[in-house]
């Protein structure tokens, strides 16, 4: 994925619950597309990266260099979606929960 442009963007990440040791109690799904955000939010931040007003200002302050130590804005999840997980609770009963903010839909500079 690093051959792609280095600007802030959503990248593909598939999480397999077995890989993180959770498959013992998660019945379904076995894996899901989580995605992640990565890339630069350098000045000038393109509109496509949906910078917040604050991120724009921070980017300018950093570019101008008046305040030392200010980092560039972060590339973070913007819109996220929920994921339904079917799992066993501590008494081995089956539970279905809809967890919010489990999958990245889009990224932004913030």
């Amino acid at each position, binding site marked *: 994925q690093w051959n792609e442009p280095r600007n802030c963007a959503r990248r593909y990440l598939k999480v397999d619950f077995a890989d993180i*040791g*959770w498959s*013992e*109690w998660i*019945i*379904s*799904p076995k894996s899901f597309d989580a995605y992640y955000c990565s890339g630069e939010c350098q000045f000038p931040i393109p509109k496509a990266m949906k910078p917040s*007003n604050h991120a*724009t*200002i921070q980017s*300018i302050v950093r*570019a*101008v260099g*008046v*305040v*030392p*130590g200010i980092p560039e804005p972060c590339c973070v999840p913007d819109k996220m979606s929920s994921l*339904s*997980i*079917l*799992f066993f*609770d*501590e*008494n*081995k*009963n*089956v*539970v*279905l*929960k*809809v*967890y*919010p*903010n*489990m999958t990245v839909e889009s990224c932004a500079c913030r």
Partner: protein
Amino acid sequence: GAVRGSRARPPAGEDGPGQRRPERPAAADRVAEHMLRLYEQYRGGRDPPAPPGPWLRRGNTVRGFRPLPAGSPKGQEMYIFNLTSLTESENVLSASVYYYIGDLLHVKWNCSQPSGCSHHWHRKPEIQIRLSVWTFPSAGNLTRSLGHFLINVSSAYQDILSWQWKDITQLLHEAKQNNELLISVKMDLTGHPPWERASSSYEPYILIYANDSAISEPESVVSTLRGHHHPLARVLPKPEGHRRSSVDNRRRKRSANVLLPLQNNELPGAKYQYGEEQGWEGTKPYKTFQPQLADRARSKKKQRKSHLQKTQTLQFDEQTLKKARRK
């Protein structure tokens, strides 16, 4: 408790009228099957099925409870349910007991026809099921009745189904309020031979629809898995402890990593104190800045107002940036 029988209704996606089977469906675990079906409906982005009863809100949590394996007094079948995994943050929207009455039906096979065997369902004319819900005594507590229902299974039901359900939402609210989450469900037939305990596939089960208010909290996906899930416990500290320690760390960082005003963008000389209700607020030195800032803000406000109405996004041309760089 109410004294009215519930109308037969299958679990979501269950066989409807006209789809009766001559034999028991080969379900290994009815509650797992039911939960899996609900999961598919939630996952598919389809409108999840409404929980039974008048409860239309669906919430973000469904829990399925199997009965604990237990003996029972003769002639009165008792199923014990451990509902203690229900958390305080889970607001119960609906709770139902699902039970199988297929054994109350007789199947008569007729193999006289040349085309092969056909089957006919015959119902006993009047069957009355008494379903009662009790708290199960824990240390120092006595059993008490939460409610009971008399359910009539009569020939009036033309489309009788093997699985039925009974809404016990109010009973469960009471049990949860009193923290009596070990409950027993007793089933017996009035005026008939004793209710026989079914094999595990056909035992009653409880479904609880709830809205978990804590699900949006940080690490909720981890906190719901704490307890017996050792692999996780090895990797991550328990959420409560983790939360406490992270708060402590933040406090320490706030006090230890004091930056100079130029580094931290705070007003020089300003000291901040935290008020529970007011949030962060400045002490006197900060307040002395307020009139000046307010005046400046007022004078610039008019200029900005017209521009802000056009767009809510800040825009910068190259000239402005050059000026800023020169400064």
